[in-house]
């Protein structure tokens, strides 16, 4: 039965994804939830919680209000907190019970916005989907509501879309990614959303190309394309794929056509390496390994909302049973360490900690994929 899990954990869910994506943008995120969502988010999904300030709260929903459909306390608490703390915007996210109740989040958002004069919106969530959906929708809302309309394009400039600690760990990895791009003459206008504030992100329409470095950035990329005609490239400049990413950026800038930077040959019979994790980063890594070693690999996608990134031969596997079945003949696996128990005992395993899977369990062993001498490069050179 695919819903039962013997040993694997579950990926960060949509509500935490919203919080992670909006953490640095100066807004206030309110999870409509009785208790656990906030603790789960800030303990396991948010590495910045101790050191960085962000207005992320839960509503503390309780039984009677949920049954009676009393939204007034929720609205009142948000309005009074917003008046005290003055956020740039207010984003709402829903846990399972408000979803079950059919809570009218759009109506509530409108009422709060009218009362506070602060932009307020609901990011569609219900606590039952992956972070890729929640974080992706959150960034899409930022495009819809905040990115300036009238802009002049700046050549050789790029926004990085889909950057959260859930996939990128610490800021050092983001800085290394930026350095790679600037070293090749690309100006990084904004990073969605680590290290840049809302004002910087609002100018994203000026970029000539958007670079989608995780599946979280896909929806925002599409909207930016609709809104400003900006093409996007899917891919992360890891190792030997870096050159391909730059070429794809050049092509996209020149032609206005969005494209993928990785084109990895697939041969199920010859695939001796298996990668599991976030698709853009894993497929970029896979492409680097192929270019360096001609080692054919296959990618297993365990996440929702990533279909556009997948290519022929990629496997979408949901739940522990499907994943275990997909891994049964694996010889060498690159994945988060918590996948190891479902891999064949004799398979070689390269640990690549992923916050969105194992949280902070392996935070001391994060690997910076954009660091020229990173462990992953050393191992696969």
């Amino acid at each position, binding site marked *: *039965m695919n*819903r*039962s*899990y*013997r*040993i694997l*954990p*579950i*990926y*960060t*869910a*949509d*509500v935490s994804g919203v919080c992670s994506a909006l953490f640095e943008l100066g807004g206030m995120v*309110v999870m409509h*939830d*009785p*208790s*656990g*969502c*906030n*603790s*789960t988010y*800030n*303990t*396991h999904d948010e590495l910045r919680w*101790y050191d960085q*300030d*962000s*207005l992320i*709260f*839960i*509503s*503390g*929903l*309780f*039984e009677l209000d*949920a049954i009676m459909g009393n939204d007034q306390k929720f609205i009142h*608490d*948000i309005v*009074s*907190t917003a008046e*005290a*703390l003055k956020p740039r915007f207010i984003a709402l996210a829903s*846990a*399972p*019970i408000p*979803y*079950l109740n059919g809570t009218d989040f759009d109506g509530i958002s409108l009422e709060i916005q009218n009362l506070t004069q602060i932009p307020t919106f609901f990011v569609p969530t*219900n*606590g*039952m*989907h*992956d972070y890729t959906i929640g974080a992706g929708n959150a960034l899409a809302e930022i495009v819809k509501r905040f990115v300036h309309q009238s802009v002049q394009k700046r050549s050789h400039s790029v926004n990085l879309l889909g950057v959260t600690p859930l996939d990128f760990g610490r800021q050092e990895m983001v800085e290394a990614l930026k350095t790679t791009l600037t070293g090749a003459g690309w100006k990084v206008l904004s990073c969605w959303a680590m290290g840049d504030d809302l004002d910087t992100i609002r100018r994203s329409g000026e970029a000539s190309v958007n670079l989608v470095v995780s599946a979280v950035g896909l929806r925002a990329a599409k909207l930016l394309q609709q809104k400003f005609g900006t093409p996007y490239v899917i891919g992360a400049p890891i190792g030997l794929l870096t050159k391909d990413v730059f070429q794809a950026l050049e092509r996209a800038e020149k032609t206005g056509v969005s494209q993928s930077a990785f084109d990895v040959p697939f041969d199920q019979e010859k695939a001796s390496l298996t990668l599991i994790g976030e698709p853009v980063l894993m497929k970029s890594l896979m492409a680097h390994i192929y270019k360096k070693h001609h080692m054919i690999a296959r990618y297993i996608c365990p996440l929702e909302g990533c279909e556009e990134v997948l290519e022929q031969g990629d496997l979408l596997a949901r*739940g522990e049973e499907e994943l275990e079945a997909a891994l049964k003949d694996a010889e060498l696996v690159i994945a988060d360490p*918590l996948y190891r128990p479902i891999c064949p005992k004799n398979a070689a395993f390269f640990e690549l900690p992923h916050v969105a899977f*194992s*949280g*902070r*369990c*392996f935070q001391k062993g994060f690997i910076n994929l954009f660091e020229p001498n990173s462990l992953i490069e050393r191992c696969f050179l």
Partner: protein
Amino acid sequence: MLKPIRPQNSPETLISQAFFPLPFAPSLEFNSPAHGTWNIVHTGMQIPEAHQIYVCAANCMRGVVLTAAEMNASERFSMVILEEGDLLEGTVEDITIEGTADAIRKLPKRPPAVLLFTVCLHHFLGCDLDRIYRELREQFPNIVFFRCYMDPIMQKHGLTPDQKLRKAMLDAFPPCEASVRSISILGSDFALSERCELRSVLQENGYHAREIQDCSTFSDYFNLATSELFLSLYPAGKYGVEQGAKRLGRRFLYLPMCFGYEEIRQNWDKVSEELGICPLDHTSFQKKCDQALQTARDIIGTTPIAIDGTFHPRPLGLARLLMEHSFVVKTVYLDGISSEEERDFRWLQANAPTLTLKATIRPEMRRMPREQEEKVLALGQKAAWFENTPYFVNLVQGGGLWGYGGILELADWMKDAFFTEKDTRDIIPRKGLGCESCV
């Protein structure tokens, strides 16, 4: 002075102006990075050989499954994920039964016990929990199922999931004969401190006291049911232990962890009466405590002290004890005041009216300035975080402190904490103080 008639819509107040039992109005809630208190996963893992299975949606699951992972106990944890279709099609009961059965069948070894946690969704959908447990017991007659809940939506006006778990942990005890001169101390996450006089006095009088922390097999755990007297020392455990004692026909005593000499004496009077043992020499014990506190006071001097409600169930009782011994307590962090603390609250209002109470979950606390100009000694992880101090006593939920021995031990820890800097950034985000942690 005018008395407050309602909780204050602010994150701090002088105690003289605080409303009992809720000094601060409910609002949006902030969660500080201090995570040393135990949750239901940690507590449930204390039952040897038992396996935990949670049935809930992804977002709720993440916190518990990673709790197990962080404490290197993933092999004792399984889960069943609920999806939208289950809610809309009314299949939550079926998925719960099938998923739990499937998770059990996948285990390399059949556990003697399963703690099955259902959630708010089961409650709101009116799931037939009796059916769920009946069918699972039919399928797995050799497994003891513990009926546990992770339903925080009910906790503000009813029992918390933590209290319910502590009850469930005793509900599973089978009816059995009581053994004479045996005592089970139940309902707490922490073993009674070795320095606590309760241990030695019971032993000297021929009583065998046992705790869950002494158990290494599930059979050991069930043997706790055979004691003739059940003791509860921890407030969150009281309800469950009392219910368990009633169901099994055992004697029951609640001897709350506390700091006031008078209440400690009352606890001991109950013990003496129930067990027929000689009264304690309270004067001697109190003198030792006074001396230990005086020594600590001489060292700590007028350094301000901050206490938080996760440190001990009686933060105000502790503040009172310290102030009665001339310590300078400036702040107590708490979000509500237990009815057990009303007397201490009133005493502090009258005798220490400038003592500040600060909330921990009010949203303003996210931006409360944390930089300190002077050294602060914190008692508790949240106080250490809010006060941004490396000088703190790292204890949660009262640890195993009880009675006069608890006060003596605390005085030693305060002296040690005053001199020894701790790595607050590294220590307090770890979950479940005392449990294994891979973080």
